[in-house]
């Protein structure tokens, strides 16, 4: 049973902003979905399978960087050549 508290916790961890009105709906849906996932309990835990290919590498060669204007072209906000972001404190 996935509780509203669980939904709030995962919402915070995933940073997707869950609001009050969505809690009920999400907890019902997650319960159903995770109940379905329980079928996996029968299986052992395993590492990601690797194929037969390894060591795909590139040589240490410099290729041209993006022109500064192009790098910033889709930016939300910029200042003096920097991307602007909300304050972290």
């Amino acid at each position: 049973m996935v509780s509203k508290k669980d939904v709030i916790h995962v919402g915070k961890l995933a940073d997707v902003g869950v609001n009050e009105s969505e809690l009920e709906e999400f907890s019902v849906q997650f319960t159903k979905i995770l109940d379905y996932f329980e079928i996996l309990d029968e299986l052992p835990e395993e590492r990601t399978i690797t194929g037969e290919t390894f060591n795909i590498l590139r040589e240490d060669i410099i290729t041209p960087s993006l022109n500064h204007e192009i790098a910033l072209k889709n930016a939300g906000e910029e200042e003096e050549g920097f991307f602007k972001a909300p304050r972290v404190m």
Partner: protein
Amino acid sequence: MEMISFNPHDTCNAFITTQIQAPFKEGALSGVPIAIKDNICTAGIETTCGSAILKGYIPPYDAHVITLLKDAGAAIVGKTNMDEFGMGTTTESSAFGPTTNPHDPSRVPGGSSGGSAAAVASGMVPYALGTDTGGSIRCPASFCGITGLKPTYGRVSRFGLIAYANSLEQIGPMAQDVSGVSRIFSVIAGHDTHDATSVNHPYTHNPDPEKINGMRIGVPDEFFGDGVDPAVSTVVKEALDVFASKGAELIPFTMPSMRFSLAAYYVICTSEASSNLARFDGIRYGPAIDTKNRWHDAFSKYRHDYFGKEVRRRIMLGTFALSSGYYGRYYQKAQAAKRMVREDFARIFTDVDIIAGPTMPTVAYKLGEKNDPLQMYLSDILTVPANLAGVPALSVPCGHIEKMPVGLQIMGKPFDDETVIDAAYAYEQEVAKNGR
């Protein structure tokens, strides 16, 4: 530079962006119009993944497949509608409105490459690119009555494909017929030095209808069991009889790993998606994030406001599956299931050349019909095994139920997309000959 004009009468909302004047070069596909699913980056052309969070994003680079198509002379005429970030089976979750099925505007075209399928099915374009993570090319191909191929994992570069689930997805061709699919596949398949998971295995095959003679075709019990509409089973079984009439042998078998495949698929794809979609923060692209607020608050609000509900749901599921204490229980067990599915396919392929069955459990649903997430996920049951195993899988139209198309799914050995195409071609040619 030469141009073609593109001004379609898009009544099914197949396109998000159209290029009224589309340039093209000399080449094997010179002047051929092709529509591109909107999760594939096209330099200078808005690329949204069907999401509000990428509205206005103009990539500064082309996906590798786009470079290949342009070099071959194709004209990129537009970007097609899709379920937001590829997460869906109906194209209803697009932030740009749903696409409707050209055969019946009250029904969905399938998803997530619904726009591409509708664009081809309605005749607006002869070819389109879609992407397939758990059936997103094959499902809309089936629902819209066209042909679509999910190539062997690694045969087509993913560089420039805006990632949903990296270990499962491939870009693939969609067309009116198998020759069309084969033609586009020959241009986009091949190694890319920018994609470490891409394999050096170009496609230079011409579909051969004679190869069907003597082919051993595996028919999985689970593909005709509970959860599959009996009417669909009947139509598909008739299609299999066509194979038999052309000298193929039908061999029934079971796939025990099917029990786990849907859960494994959803654990893996939501886990990878939760990580892939974390980068959309409005700093470098997309609508601007509020820089007057604190980072944490601004970021969650941004994602709440600009991601649709299904996307947020899957991000949460994936975050949960990867989280401390649950990683072993979900992600690692899903890996065990993935291995089981691969081994099942490998075992079956020692005895058969291809596997055939229905693509989807039903024909296209009505708009708004699938509103419960788990019910929606269950409709992927027949398509996800091919993504987990990495094998090639194609859907070719094989009949109708009350005017709505039914799709025949053909899966092949890894890197034997050629045999899949041959079988599909043989079927298609035989049916055309008999005027169905």
